[in-house]
């Protein structure tokens, strides 16, 4: 990991207009991604993790969605403003994605070779033969046995873990600078999950790729990410180095989240902590802290105004009135 920032997301806002009102799926999200860094985004369903990343590569379906504000700077170019023809050269090439379900993200009618060669020919300007060699090499790196044979098979001939390896091979075949992995292991079993995470870690390290890993599993984040963003109701509530956040979480939501996961390495004799209540409905959310109805430390001000992020010395920031300077 170096200090060179390759992606800057500034105050990103993505809204969806539905019959009931405006869904503020992402409401003012900012983070930086440095070269070779692995950034984790955790949060519960509906917290805006996936929408954040779809917005980054400008893939929000419009309508109903619309990017209401903010900037996504990739090498000082705003991806939200550049023309479509230019973004096609970035997607799948400089920034590529892996999705949760490898069955729906591979075309079932095409051989793996066809799908991989297409990407490589398009972005790297190789001829078909060289592209196929490159594809075989990538499959081999991703740990697929007998890649020369397997490359001519169809997606249904692969198991779930193998398909996810194909997706990793495919997404890394153009040496992207950023790999966005949206719940890459959520559909997989633990032993396969361990394999896939290991391969992702090893390959991205070797190729110097920065990774944005979206997941709901705190365990996965703890083992793979350098930095961490915790999202709640469309906002990042806490952000910082992973080890600092886990050892001393600041935001009440992060504290609750970490405490409510049962742990394998401890004897869970006492009662599990749980955050009361339900995640909020993000339709027409008022401008208050969305966590206050579930928060044990809620104060008056929490229901009036959303707190600005407070920066701490250890490189972390949290959006909570408990730490805010301007309070009261």
């Amino acid at each position, binding site marked *: 990991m170096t200090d060179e920032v390759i992606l800057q997301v500034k105050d990103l806002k993505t809204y969806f207009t539905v019959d009931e009102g405006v869904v503020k799926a992402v409401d003012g999200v900012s983070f930086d991604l440095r070269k070779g860094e692995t950034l984790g985004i955790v949060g519960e369903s509906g917290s805006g993790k996936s929408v954040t990343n779809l917005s980054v590569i400008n893939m929000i379906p419009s309508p109903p969605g619309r990017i209401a504000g903010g900037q996504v700077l990739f090498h000082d170019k705003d991806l939200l403003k550049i023309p479509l023809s230019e973004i096609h050269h970035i997607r799948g090439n400089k920034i590529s994605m892996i999705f949760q379900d490898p069955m729906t993200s591979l075309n079932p009618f095409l051989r793996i070779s066809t799908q991989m060669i297409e990407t490589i020919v398009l972005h790297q300007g190789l001829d078909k033969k060289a592209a196929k060699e490159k594809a075989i090499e990538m499959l081999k790196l991703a740990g697929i046995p007998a890649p020369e044979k397997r490359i001519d098979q169809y997606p249904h001939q692969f*198991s779930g873990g193998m398909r996810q390896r194909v997706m990793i091979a495919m997404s890394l075949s153009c040496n992207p600078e950023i790999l966005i992995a949206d719940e890459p292991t959520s559909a997989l*079993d633990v032993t396969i999950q*361990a394999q896939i995470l290991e391969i992702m870690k090893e390959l991205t390290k070797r190729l110097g790729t920065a990774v944005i890993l979206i997941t709901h599993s705190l365990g996965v984040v*703890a*083992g793979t990410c350098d930095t961490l963003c915790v999202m709640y109701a469309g906002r990042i509530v806490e952000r910082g180095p992973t080890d600092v956040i*886990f050892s001393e979480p600041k935001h009440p939501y992060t504290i609750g989240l970490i405490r409510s*996961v049962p742990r394998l390495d401890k004897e869970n004799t006492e009662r599990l902590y749980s*955050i009361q209540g339900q*995640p909020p409905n993000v339709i027409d959310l008022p401008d208050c802290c969305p966590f206050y109805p579930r928060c044990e430390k809620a104060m008056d001000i929490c229901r009036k105004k959303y707190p600005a992020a407070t920066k701490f010395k250890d490189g972390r920031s949290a959006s909570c009135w408990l730490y805010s300077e301007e309070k009261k």
Partner: protein
Amino acid sequence: MSDHEVLLDVRGLKMHFATKSSLFSKNKGYIYAVDGVDFQIKKGETLGLVGESGCGKSTTVRAIAQLYKPTAGEVILNGKDLTKMPAQDLLAARKNMQMVFQDPYASLNPRMTAGEIIAEPMRIFQNRGLLSMSSAERDDKVEHLMERVGLSRFFKNRYPHEFSGGQRQRIGIARALALRPELMLCDEPVSALDVSIQSQILNLFKDLQQEFGLTYLFIAHDLAVIQYISDRVAVMYLGLIVEISGSKDLYKKPLHPYTQALLSAAPIPDPAVEAKRQRIILTGDVPSPDRQRPGCYFYDRCWKHMDVCKTHRPRLQETEAGHKVACFLYHKPD
């Protein structure tokens, strides 16, 4: 818990599904989803069942509930074998055994209100003359159940789509509780839920167990969840139980190589611990259960395999009190 009487006794349970024969061949193939499973659950105890997808956890539970007719074996609930029971008796026996399903979206009828869903088991047993209760009593009970699982009684007339995932799972639990069963079969009841909701539901399960003296057979693929909820744990692989033991014992001292790999693969939410951990990374995938093999089913992926493992299948043997494992590493000659 050891001196309590046995509530459920599963003996040699097998569930084979016939696969479609091809156009030209007569011999049918089978999927050996569950291939000889034995275990007991004592009253008031929670047995956790873990394993990867396709290992036969759900099939085991469904075969116990008699939703599938088991190919072979006995399912003895309260001393009576369910597999040989006539349909009328089976219905009565089911009153003692209810299920909670994984998907809180698919397991609730979208056209029934929460109140109707929770009342349905009582209504069915009333119609068959197995339960006597007035409709006022039933309404009362529904409201009581709703409050008990943490839902406001004013939500009685709402439809499932108006609830969140966690609330729906509460409805599913209330429905399972309605007949006051002794045994609850929980098929991945928290897997579809978010972390903060998952802990609420796990605590609800624990509270209800204390209050009503329930016995659980609890499936999950998350090992930490199983550890939290279970007294004893059975680990399944390809339709067989490879290890069964007290929960503490299993997590401290896993014996079967598969259990060891499974435990080491599960991520722990603590970067300091994760940085120091040595992982056993298994190669390959779970093989297909479409044929019976002569040797140990874990042979291909096991890093400790021996010659004997290829040709003989290890039996489940007790190594210490209450700790059984099916592996030749610990095999004692009879």
